[in-house]
């Protein structure tokens, strides 16, 4: 069974987690065009690579970030989201 590390609960079977997708930064909805917004909502870099993704440990509802290689399905790092601080 594949194991993922929850930043709060430690190593757990992957079936306890769900995947939310790569983290994207929205444009400012007040000033962006409809087209920029649709680009944000729908389009993505669908090619394989190392991606930062939102995951959730569902029994504890812990949301966190995973850095994962989507070609080899290797989980490189998991940590709590820092709110997008630079």
């Amino acid at each position, binding site marked *: *069974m*594949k194991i993922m590390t929850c930043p709060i609960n430690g190593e757990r079977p992957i*079936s306890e987690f*769900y*995947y939310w*997708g790569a983290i994207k930064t929205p444009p400012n909805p007040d000033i962006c065009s*409809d*087209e920029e917004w*649709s*680009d944000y909502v*729908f*389009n*993505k*870099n*669908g*090619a*394989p690579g190392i*991606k930062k993704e939102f995951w959730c440990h569902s029994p504890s509802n812990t949301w966190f970030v995973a850095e994962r290689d*989507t*070609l*080899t*399905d290797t989980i490189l790092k998991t940590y709590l989201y820092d709110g997008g601080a630079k």
Partner: protein
Amino acid sequence: MPWRLLRFGLSKKHPEPRMFDAPDALKPSYDVVIIGGGGHGLACAYYLARDFGITNVCVLEKGYIGGGNTGRNTTIIRSNYLTPEGAQFYDKSLELWQDLSTEFDLNLFYSNRGHFTLAHTDAAMRTSRWRAEVNKHYGIDSEVVGPEFVKKHAPMINLQCGHHPIMGALYHAPGSVARHDAVAWGYGRGANMRGVEIHQRTEVLGIDTKGGKVCGVKTSKGYIETTKVLSATAGSTPRILKMLDIDTPIFIHPLQAMVSEPLKPWLDTILVSGSLHIYISQSSRGELVMGASLDPYEVHSTRSTLDFPEGLSAQMLDMFPFLSEVKVMRQWAGMADMTPDFAPIMGKTRIDGFYLDAGWGTYGFKATPVSGKTMAYTIANDKPHELITAFSSERFKNYELTGEKGAASVGH
């Protein structure tokens, strides 16, 4: 073993012609370059040559013919989709399937079984009625049936289905299965006979453009000049699009399937349960061909997991408890190219001369003939065929998504 085979084994000559010839080298230029030797790419090459007389065409396949999703799918063919654009498109495909074996002079083992989408909840019954009405409106054979009818056609079924009693089903009499690799070979041979070159083990590494127009293709076997390129690469589509810096909503999740050991024939229909997320049919060899929903997260490989047969078997035993002693023979996966609205992305792109046939996810095998035909039209005329205008990539920009999820979400 047939005697013919033994004779070939003993002789050094192989008088039996190959399905298609294997040219040594690429020509310096082609009128059309098709990336991907799956059913879709080969069908497009076939119709380009047959219907439009465009024969200076090459199909480039990085592995072997049909080694992608074409040879990994569970071969369900049906047209009982939910949206008018979907239903009409897939129904045209169903029509084309009918005489393909004759046209190719190759037995595709096209086998008409009847297709049930089982409903275990009121909501599922409601969707069944909705689909039946849309289908009937377009002349598609589709009706809502009760549990007795299901039992009559699949006597081994447990209508109680664990905690999910079957309330009825959407029944689609034309539902069929076919032999997938024969479809790729049939189109490949037909295209090749008309002059199309098929290059296996030839990978596309880059696409060159000049002033927003396609001008050439870099491959592992050299450079080709061309002004028209089609990508029909299913699970590898985002990698091809990356070469051109095109972002689309396409995302890749694996879709898995498995077969049991061969059994005597006992199931001659195709059964799908949206609530249990499983489907099953019995192949002409007697194996039970079984599938479920997509894997839950993005992965770009064809790895299998143990979770899959475990989960699928648990649900299957609710429906057919007598299968508990039956062994699983093989499991595998394909990379499904999914879109947010469960409809393909077909047609022209913002780069002149670059055409896309993708987003076929879990449901594109049945569309092989019609997508080949409509993409050939689109490439020959540089104008989308009327059956595919609703599937253009522009629909996302214009917030005009199709609503096909209800009819396509369990992978087949």
